[in-house]
């Protein structure tokens, strides 16, 4: 029901079979972990701008459209995000996350803030490239980012209702109330799915990292 009312069917391939897709769709963002272009921006290197736009322009544009009611809003939002990015590039800490995660965090904050200021809920608009999300190739998979792969696998390991709540909330930008209205679940249950889902992913990632550290010491 929630898919029919809120999300264009087929827009989220993981909803149907997470195991099939795994991390197939991160190919275009390969190289996120290398060549910290954010550091170059922070150092005042004007040539880094094109590189940032090449690497993360589509990422920010995708997020901006998901968190905006229309294309005009999305354009304004994307501009705001990049201004924030130029200003906060010096805060990037590669020991905490990849550049893509940092860029996404900056983008989400700005766009959520814009939504709050406009006092309206995000209207999930699934645009054509999201439908193309199912087209990740094998070669893309070979380029997968470890950090993103771990998160994706952790997400796939959640209970279906938690996966759905996180996907609708974090990816599609739906409020908890919208999710409740569209899934028929009580608001408290939706909140619980989101919170517990995040906690579980954190636990799973912690276990992965502890495991990796253990392997590294052998």
């Amino acid at each position, binding site marked *: 029901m929630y898919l029919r009312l809120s999300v264009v069917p087929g827009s989220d391939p993981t909803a149907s079979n997470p195991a099939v897709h795994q991390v197939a769709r991160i190919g275009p963002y390969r190289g996120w972990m290398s060549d910290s272009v954010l550091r170059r921006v922070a150092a005042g290197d004007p040539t880094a701008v094109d590189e940032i736009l090449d690497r993360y322009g589509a990422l920010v*544009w995708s997020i901006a459209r998901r968190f905006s009611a229309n294309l005009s809003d999305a354009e304004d939002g994307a501009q705001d995000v990049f201004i924030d990015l130029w200003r906060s590039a010096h*805060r990037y800490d590669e020991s905490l996350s990849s550049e893509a995660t940092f860029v996404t965090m900056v983008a989400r904050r700005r766009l959520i803030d814009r939504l709050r200021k406009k006092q309206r809920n995000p209207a999930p608009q699934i645009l054509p490239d999201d439908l*193309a999300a199912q087209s990740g190739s094998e070669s893309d998979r070979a380029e997968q980012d470890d950090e993103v792969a771990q998160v994706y696998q952790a997400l796939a390991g959640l209970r279906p209702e938690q996966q759905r709540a996180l996907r609708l909330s974090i990816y599609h930008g739906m409020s908890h109330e919208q999710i409740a209205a569209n899934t028929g679940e009580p608001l408290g249950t939706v909140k619980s799915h989101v919170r517990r889902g995040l906690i579980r992913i954190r636990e799973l990632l912690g276990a992965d990292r502890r495991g990796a550290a253990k392997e590294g010491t052998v």
Partner: protein
Amino acid sequence: MNDDRTHFERQRLWELMADRASGDLGSEELAELHRLLIQFGDVDSEEVDRLAAMIDVSLQPGHPQPLPQALRARIAQDASREIETSLQLARRKPRLPGMSPTWTPAAWLGWGAAAACLLVAVSMWWTNSGQKSPLDLARQRQQLLQEQGTVTALLAPPAPDGRAHGDVVWSSSSQSGFMRLQGLPINDPTVKQYQLWIFDPSQDERYPIDGGVFDVTSEGEIIVPIHAAIRAKQPNLFAITVEKPGGVVVSQRDPLVLLGKVAVKPS
């Protein structure tokens, strides 16, 4: 008993961070989040935001649409300005603002009175100040000034010997505003940044609204857009502190470099 309470509050803190990361946090809950983040200083306040960002990235489409060319050009143009500002900053030797007197919570609450005493002198200076600022920001600021309901505040240092001064223009209806500042020492953003605080009667006075961090990049007049973290309904006081890079959730208010009450319009 205390352990139970601490455990419950930590759990609550994580829930609130999860709600914020998923874009579902009201202003009351945000105040609660701020309180708990102070209480549990060991907690990484961005951890859940990063986790949500990683989930978002992991669900990104494989072949996303690129930025529209016209939009990309506009963004690059914005970037040029920002990069130029950074280059100017790099050419200058960073200087941090002088230390202001330590402010206790009681003194913080008395900012309004202190500011009022200084506003007259600053107002006289400001009247004679006519330096140009970047045209776009100046134009936007001017437009905002002409909007109905826009409020203004003159900013002055808490110490009488302070050289810095400025003003704030704020519109609650559009939730936008600008600071116009002069005399604040240029900062090194990798060491310290300036942060604006907005006092609003709808908020607990101990937790003013974060108005955003910013850098001072030149010794002349600068105009800085305000990015309030949450809705500021009816601000009555603005204050600027010096904080660690990226700013803080709640300021220790030391050093406090500028403050000013919102001017009461004649009836």
